[in-house]
């Protein structure tokens, strides 16, 4: 057991020495893996950001219910009473037509136009905030609201939220496909790196076999090397995306300030970053495993 642990330590030291021994080619391998991972990682991070933004906007989906302009005060009160009885609603707000007009007068660009009006064309309205983002619930409530007497128009903002979410789903599938393809590229890159290493260490492997080294003793440093390439490549991808986001945020900040928003691109959560590095380590190990099982048997002492 102690000897086994000792050998693992030796393998790690050896892996570090091999990486440091050929700094340029190590750097290239790490960069190839890093770039391959940075593309889907960047896409994924952007999606996460957009998702967060959309969810923030549509935290409380609202449905506006516009009364007919001919509706009497009692009609309006009646609708209000029935709305209160409705389930699945978080809050209810009544916007009388006078208030709506006053609000419009304060809106820059509309004030002049409103001033030319002889009478108020705006209807009374209820704004219903839904209790959940469940699209089925929204559709059902919308249906009920349309059936209310003296209601001319029902407008839900769930529609565009759903459209954006559908787009995000398309994006997510695209990123997944990209990630799957580039994972193959990562495995292939480690496969080839390890193959070259096995070839250059041919005589060492042969001697090790002659003096009684087990296959696992010989393979282990290659597995470590593959996993190390994965860890370094994954970290390089994180660094690239982080750098790109930092750069983009300079522009995003200006853009957001024009919209009086303090929106910023947010980098991955720590847990996501750690699982990315772990995932890439596993892929590197897999590449090394495939390469070793393919090439090591070909080296037998003669």
């Amino acid at each position, binding site marked *: 057991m102690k*000897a086994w642990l000792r050998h693992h330590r030796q393998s790690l030291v050896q892996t570090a020495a091999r990486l440091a021994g050929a700094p340029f080619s190590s750097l290239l391998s790490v960069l190839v893996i890093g770039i391959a991972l940075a593309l889907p990682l960047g896409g994924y991070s952007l999606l996460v950001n957009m998702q967060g933004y959309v969810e923030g906007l549509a935290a409380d989906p609202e449905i506006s219910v516009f009364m007919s302009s001919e509706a009497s005060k009692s009609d309006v009160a009646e609708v209000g009473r029935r709305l209160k009885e409705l389930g699945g609603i978080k809050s209810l707000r009544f916007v009388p037509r006078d208030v709506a007009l006053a609000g419009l007068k304060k809106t820059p660009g509309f004030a002049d136009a409103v001033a030319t009006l002889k009478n108020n064309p705006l209807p009374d309205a209820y704004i219903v905030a839904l209790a959940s983002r469940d699209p089925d619930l929204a559709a059902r409530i919308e249906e009920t609201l349309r059936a209310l007497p003296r209601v001319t128009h029902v407008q839900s903002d769930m529609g565009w939220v759903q459209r954006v979410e559908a787009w995000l789903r398309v994006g997510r599938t695209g990123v997944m496909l990209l990630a799957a393809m580039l994972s193959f590229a990562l495995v292939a890159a480690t496969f080839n790196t390890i193959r070259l290493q096995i070839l250059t260490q041919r*005589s060492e492997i042969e001697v090790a076999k002659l003096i009684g080294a087990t296959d696992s003793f010989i393979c282990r440093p290659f597995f470590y090397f593959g996993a190390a390439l994965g860890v370094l490549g994954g970290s390089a991808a994180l660094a690239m995306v982080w750098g790109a986001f930092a750069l983009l945020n300079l522009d995003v900040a200006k853009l957001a300030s024009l919209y009086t928003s303090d929106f910023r691109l947010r980098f991955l959560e720590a847990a996501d970053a750690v699982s990315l590095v772990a995932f890439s380590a596993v892929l590197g190990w897999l590449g090394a495993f495939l390469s070793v099982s393919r090439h090591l048997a070909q080296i037998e002492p003669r």
Partner: protein
Amino acid sequence: MQPIISFSHVSKRYPGGFEALHEVSLDIAPGQMVFITGHSGAGKSTMLKLIAGIERATSGMVLVNGQNVSAMKPAAIPYLRRNLGLVFQDQKLLYDRSVFDNVMLPLLVTGQPHREAARRARAALDKVGLLDREKANPIALSGGEQQRLCIARAVVNRPSILIADEPTASLDVDYARTIMEMFLSFHQVGVTLLVATHDQGTIERMQPRRVALDHGKLSPDSTAEASP
């Protein structure tokens, strides 16, 4: 006494049909010094390779320490080899590391603690007279020194059997004599010694047991015991 190495009706045919050994049977007792002689192509190297599990017998049985090498699982071969010290004509040294690290390799393979391993590696280097060259790269050593380094690597794990394939073939007479005297000293502490050679001078001087091969068969020149 039970033989440490035993061949019974061993034949080895290489792909392509060349038969290197034909129906060879012999027993080697623990601690014996055996020289395998014969013309080149007589099957000397093949015999040694069968013992180390580098080649497998086509028919017959090769026993080492009571284990049938020809039927051994590949996973068991490393443990067989840890009991053997192998010395090659072409040394098979690693030129990307120092003399010291070359000797350390077998100890790392068997998982010795580093301090103990370093001590044993230095002891082995001392035995072959290379202690003052431990930091050198093997490429800087002379042919005779490289062969001595190969011996140090073979004995550092204290094997019970030492096997050398033409260890002196490329050396001049004086170097060859030093190498052979080293082998003799290991034999004297009880190591079973198998040397393939066609160096007649050494054989006459050391009077070992002789196994003579002729076209893959044991020849009548062989002796069952060392000469008195």
